[in-house]
């Protein structure tokens, strides 16, 4: 599709960079829609699942079984007055939610949702994902400081503390994936895992999977690592002073990051959009029935999406389950746990996977 578009612009004697910049509107619109939809569904899912874990009913008033509750919340937030206290730093206060939100959206563009559904296919995709996901922390620290509120400040400082502890094990655990795949391009990482369940990266790098899972929960500030917004201690943490759409942006960024982290873990360790069998189910089951290649391609495409969604939501259920189960850690416990336990584990994982890779290659 893009090639055709670029060719047309080429005939019109426009440089290719214009083609790229204008073409980006289409994937961006898709991703914005996907992101909002995913978050609205995810918030509802979390509330329902948490309610189920604690034997409550959860939202059940708006729409059938409370299905439209999050829509109602989103519309309410849009129409809420934006209160800014007199002593805030107005500029930073407004920019902070944007800094927290925008990087998450770019990460959505970097993810290979299926074989062809990847908006930004670049060589350093994996590296960029982590660069961007740590930018969100800057937004949170900025929000905490600019609010000029003690709770917010403490929340922001805790967020910084969390970032400097969890970034390292996270990145080292991911290095083992780069070793196994020999590439930082996310699509190539997925392709390197093709060939059924046992070629997934989770098998040579199981420790890395555990480390990455724990660290990504910390990265998106979830229980048991939700210190920056600990409701029972800090009112609402870094977003205490926020209301209306600015608060909604933080909220959106947090849940969107949660979803994309699950997508990332499934992409890196669980084979992404690849099926757990040797071949696609639609090929195994329907190859003799459907002779048309075009229909087959569409079926495979849908199946790829299905597998990624299945893996992602399994991880999301796990994360919500953890939220329903574990208490919050203390700040010093959190940092000690990261530096004294996760970091050595991440190094062991890196060395182990490099040796395994070498053994497979046969040097």
């Amino acid at each position: 599709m893009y090639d055709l578009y670029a060719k047309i612009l080429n005939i019109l004697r426009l440089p290719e960079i214009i083609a790229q910049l204008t073409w980006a509107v289409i994937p961006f619109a898709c991703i914005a829609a996907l992101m909002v939809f995913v978050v609205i569904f995810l918030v509802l899912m979390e509330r329902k699942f948490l309610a189920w874990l604690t034997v409550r009913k959860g939202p059940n008033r708006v729409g059938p079984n409370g299905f439209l509750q999050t829509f109602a919340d989103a519309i309410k937030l849009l129409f809420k007055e934006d209160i800014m206290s007199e002593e805030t730093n107005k500029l930073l206060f407004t920019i902070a939610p944007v800094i927290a939100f925008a990087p998450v959206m770019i990460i959505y563009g970097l993810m290979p949702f299926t074989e062809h559904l990847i908006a930004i296919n670049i060589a350093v995709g994996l590296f960029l994902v982590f660069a961007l996901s740590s930018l969100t922390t800057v937004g949170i620290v900025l929000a905490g400081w600019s609010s000029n509120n003690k709770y917010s400040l403490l929340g922001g400082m805790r967020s910084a503390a969390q970032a400097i502890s969890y970034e390292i094990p996270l990145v080292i655990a991911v290095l083992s994936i780069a070793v196994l795949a020999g590439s930082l391009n996310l699509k190539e990482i997925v392709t390197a895992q093709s060939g059924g369940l046992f070629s997934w990266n989770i098998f040579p790098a199981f420790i890395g999977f555990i480390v990455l899972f724990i660290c990504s929960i910390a990265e998106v500030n979830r229980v048991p690592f939700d210190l920056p917004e600990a409701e029972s201690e800090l009112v609402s943490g870094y977003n205490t002073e926020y209301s209306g759409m600015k608060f909604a942006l933080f909220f959106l960024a947090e849940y969107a990051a949660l979803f994309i982290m699950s997508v990332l873990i499934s992409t890196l360790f669980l084979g992404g959009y690849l099926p757990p069998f040797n071949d696609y189910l639609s090929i195994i089951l329907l190859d003799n029935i459907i002779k048309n290649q075009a229909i087959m391609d569409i079926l495979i495409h849908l199946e790829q999406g299905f597998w990624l969604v299945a893996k992602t939501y399994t991880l999301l259920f796990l994360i919500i389950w953890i939220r329903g189960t574990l208490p919050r850690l203390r700040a010093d416990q959190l940092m000690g746990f990261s530096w004294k336990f996760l970091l050595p584990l991440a190094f062991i994982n890196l060395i182990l996977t490099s040796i395994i890779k070498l053994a497979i290659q046969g040097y």
Partner: protein
Amino acid sequence: MYIQGYGILAAFIGFSVAFAFAALIMSWLVQPKAPNKLKQKTYECGMKLFGDSRIQYDAKYYLYALLFLIFDIEAVFLFPWAVVYDKLGLFALIEALIFIAILVIGLIYAWKKDALKWQ
């Protein structure tokens, strides 16, 4: 093939920032605006403010931050190593082992010196 992505990436950066600002502006257009003195006070559980919040904050994790810097740079150095690892083989493994060992010794030293303790 890859270079194609960077133009789209640049557009994405612009668009996502614009999207966030658009959301803020849209909300600003439709929201009620009724500020008053009490509403615009800094929130502190309804009490009168207890001093300023722009105080010197004792960052108890200063030493962690220094360690973070060291290990983050190490990770950046290891990324190119990881990508070409399958082409370099055993030699690269030993080199990386030495590199990691030096930093792990540093970590153990910091640990024994109680730098990893919340002071």
